[in-house]
């Protein structure tokens, strides 16, 4: 499969990733080279093979339903670039 420049723009939009025109040009070349590499997978017969997600096939673990998290809102928000009154600030989304 080969990507077009429009595909790169579409994927960048899906990823909310800002790219300059030069970066998008470069991405087109690089992604097509990477796709050439990974397209070799198509030659492998995987009929009936279950996908492997966790290498140890571990399943989700459960724990007792007890409060364990400490109350650390201020510490956890210390890195927020914009905040007020314990809230994260973003540009206005509702007029």
């Amino acid at each position: 499969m080969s990507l077009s420049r429009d595909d790169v723009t579409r994927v960048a939009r899906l990823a909310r990733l800002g790219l300059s025109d030069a970066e998008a040009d470069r991405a087109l070349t690089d992604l097509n080279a990477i796709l050439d590499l990974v397209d070799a997978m198509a030659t492998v017969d995987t009929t009936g093979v279950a996908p492997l997600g966790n290498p140890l096939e571990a399943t989700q673990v459960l724990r007792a339903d007890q409060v364990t998290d400490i109350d650390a809102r201020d510490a956890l928000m210390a890195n927020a670039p914009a905040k007020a009154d314990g809230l994260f600030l973003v540009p206005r989304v509702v007029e």
Partner: protein
Amino acid sequence: MSTLNSLSLIEQINGLAAGTFSATELVKAHLDAIDRHRALNAFITVTPELALDAAARADQLRARGEATELAGIPIAHKDLFCTEGVLTTCGSRMLSRFVAPYDAEVVTRCKAAGLSMLGKLNLDEFAMGSSNENSAYGPVRNPWDLDRVPGGSSGGSAAAVAARLTPLATATDTGGSIRQPAALTGTCGLKPTYGRVSRWGMVAYASSLDQGGLIARSAADLAIGLAIIAGHDPKDSTSARDPVPSYRDALDSPLKGLRIGLPTAFFDHRMSDAMRTRLTTVIQALTDLGAAMIEIELPHIDHAIPAYYVIAPAEASSNLSRFDGVRFGHRAADPKDLNDLYTRSRGEGFGSEVKRRILMGTYALSEGYYEAYYKKAQQIRRLIKMDFLQAFTQCDLLLGPTTPGVAFPIGAKTQDPVAMYLEDIYTVATNLAGLPGGSFPAGRIDGLPVGFQLMAPHFAESRILNVAHQVQQVTPWHHDHPEGL
């Protein structure tokens, strides 16, 4: 000028116990060495006050007979392990001012053991790379030749250990990021079994592949280090509950009767004559120690790189969606709306390789391509794991090269991402299968170090360390170090 930093980890432990030198003297010797070798760019942050405080505490405890064995021993952490109160950048502009509010579990365990943290080590941005050239803080240089890369992504960890700036460094390995830099710097690196070491507080790249581990100067030193960081952590839902054996006790087991598999695909026409000579020397040492060599087929091994470069970017694109300019990390100035805030913060904060992997991963997961890429890669992942499990019914562990060749010149592969990805050709399969793997020095080619790699069944780290330790009893390669160090 003190040379305490040239002692191995075990020699440092013994020297402290005997009172030959203090932890303060030991830490000072390492801080001086870090200062002398700033040109390597191995550290992003050095923490001399914290290191000397920890050393002073260790000296007081030792004077009262209350010190743990490792109290005061220096360590440095790859800069994607969160450290409370100390900058954690992940080698990214995105996190250039990020100070974590808590320690990673690995860091907590090192503190509990009494280790003195010297600082945070450089890496490829978010651990994506095989040369340490993808760091927003500049490339790390290889102590063997400053014009060459140290490998990556744990390039700072490997260069720091090779240059005797620390006896032990934490590192992480998603597709070879511990083993490849260890090989290219003449150091020893161990990637444990997936789940053996807690990922809590280790910034995520590809969560089903990421595993924390160590770089040190010998297999015996790795055994000491692994005992500190291995074990179940309820805060990491993928953390393994299997008991942690005594890695140190296993080091001296004789190798007589051990069956070592040689994957035919690792020794085919693609291997250079020089690398074959190095590996033949390792095989001879193992044969002399009583091990038997068996040829092993891994039928799907050539598809490991393609599967890896779908799965890892897919998981990365998901993990890195958390960097949105809202809760932490870089935020673009004057966003005109929320979408502009996300898009520009991420565009400005991430470097080119991270962007490439986010795009590749987003594409592989996007509607209409999921079956052909992500699902297909996960099916191949199972076939590769089954190949290894089949191999381990015939042999006890596998031996191969760690890399195709020696460290390459800085800049040689930066314009060709696929050439860079092929650096991982011998290492990614173990990550896909979740197996432990280690790289150990195998001598030099044209003056530059290369490594041999051991791969073992799940949770058989002891076997890797045992075999490497026995080889290191009869070969000199792990003592090799750059001139003037």
